């Protein structure tokens, strides 16, 4: 069983892909049975207003309704928006439409107390939060979070499951940052398939805290799954990373 815990649709310059069916067709070819749809997070730039956020989530709702057995929805939010709006949007996406978690990108650094209201709501609903983060030596976006910022968020909300995406981009420093926070998991999505990173993450965090993700459509299922297949870890750990952990963390049927 393979579950891809990190895809976007459509996305920036890839808007030429007008049909999610093509993504699903390709996913099935690789043995993937579910895709976590995190929303078109850059559709309106980095700092979306409430109407723009609703539009992004409307599209995710529509797509999940069309492919309920394959797509798992996530509610995209800009934590700088009003608390009332965010709570309403979480109710709409998670409670009414069965989304499995929340997604934050780079609109607000996750150390901000503005995240508190949504994190509390996530805790009440028992849904996980996917918070983008990266260590990049070429300079980061103003509000972009680092793994150290995620560690801060995790210490403030130890009962909320937090997914830190981009294993290779966060690097060994990022893995060490969150290693002591048992409520933080890492996904393998994005960047080049840098050798040794999966092994390091398994050794440092344990295989139970790692999820396979691709970051499609900017990336490819081939190289991203190849990263897991090519890692020198046990078959059991590969199975956990490729799907079993996602089932457990997100209570999937």
């Amino acid at each position, binding site marked *: 069983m393979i579950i891809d815990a990190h895809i976007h649709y459509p996305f920036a310059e*890839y808007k030429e*892909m007008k049909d999610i069916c093509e*993504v699903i067709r*390709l996913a099935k*070819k*690789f043995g993937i049975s579910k895709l976590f749809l995190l929303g078109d997070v850059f559709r309106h730039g980095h700092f979306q207003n409430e109407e723009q956020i609703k539009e992004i989530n409307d599209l995710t709702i529509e797509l999940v309704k069309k492919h309920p057995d394959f797509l798992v929805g996530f509610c995209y939010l800009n934590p700088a928006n009003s608390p009332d709006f965010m709570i309403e949007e979480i109710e709409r996406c998670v409670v009414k439409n069965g989304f499995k978690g929340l997604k934050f990108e780079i609109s607000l650094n996750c150390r901000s107390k503005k995240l508190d209201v949504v994190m509390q709501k996530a805790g009440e609903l028992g849904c996980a939060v996917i918070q983008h983060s*990266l*260590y*990049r*030596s*070429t300079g980061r976006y103003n509000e972009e979070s680092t793994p150290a910022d995620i560690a801060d968020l995790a210490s403030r909300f130890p009962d909320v499951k937090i997914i830190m995406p981009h294993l*290779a*981009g966060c*690097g060994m420093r990022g893995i060490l940052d969150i290693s002591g926070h048992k409520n933080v998991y890492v996904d393998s999505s994005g*960047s*080049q*398939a*840098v*050798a*040794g990173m999966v092994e390091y993450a398994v050794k440092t965090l344990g295989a139970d805290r790692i999820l396979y993700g691709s970051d*499609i*459509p*900017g*990336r*490819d*299922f*081939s*190289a*991203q*799954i*190849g*990263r897991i*297949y*090519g*890692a*020198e870890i046990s078959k059991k750990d590969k199975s956990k990373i490729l799907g079993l952990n996602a089932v457990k963390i997100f209570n999937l049927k």
Partner: protein
Amino acid sequence: MIDINTALGNWPFLRFSQTTPAKLSKHLKQEGISQALVSSIDAIFYPDPDVYNQLLAVSLKSFPELLPVFIVNPILSNWERIVDSSKVKAVKIYPGYHNYSLLSNPVYSLADKLIENGMSLMIQMRVEDERSHHPLCQIPAVPVADIVKLAGKYPSLPVVCLCPYFAELVPLTSNTENVYVDISFVETMNTMTRVLRDVPAEKILFGSHTPFLYTRAATMKTEYAEIDKKTLTLITETNAKKVFKLK
């Protein structure tokens, strides 16, 4: 399958599994790779790359499927001797790491010599994703525009670009006849099908960038490619044989 982009040695920022020729050979065979071009990683930073070129050549003697590609720094006085001593019909350069421009006299002299010897020029555009470089060791990628200009100046010199990004493929290959690219860093949705929309198959070579990247990440790009067998064979074998004059 022929892998044109592999290496052996130590790198300060990563820890590799394939640390010896025997381990590399076994690993590549397991991945379905029967022949590979191999360079020395230590030669990148060592002041005289030929010290490690020679150590590599000796270490590969018992592994005929692993062909040593020498690294040349054209601003050092021994570049011509290294070119002449190479049994493989190519040398590799690292303009970013060795801090020179492709559009400079030392490179022009090297290009002339390679043409004279019937050899190809391999340009390592980058070794790692620039975003992940050590903050105090940020090495610039080789500019695409410089490669295009150099290739245009020497149309009979095959120029093989290693580790270009997907977005760099069209600028590299659209107006040049003699520029080739490897697939190690190339990635987008349905990679090979998408790439072949813009880049002729004759310009694409299979490269994994082992041991920096998981070899399987590259082999799965071709294994799952939605392309005909003839095109696939061009990319994984025929083009490499032609460009590097391999048997």
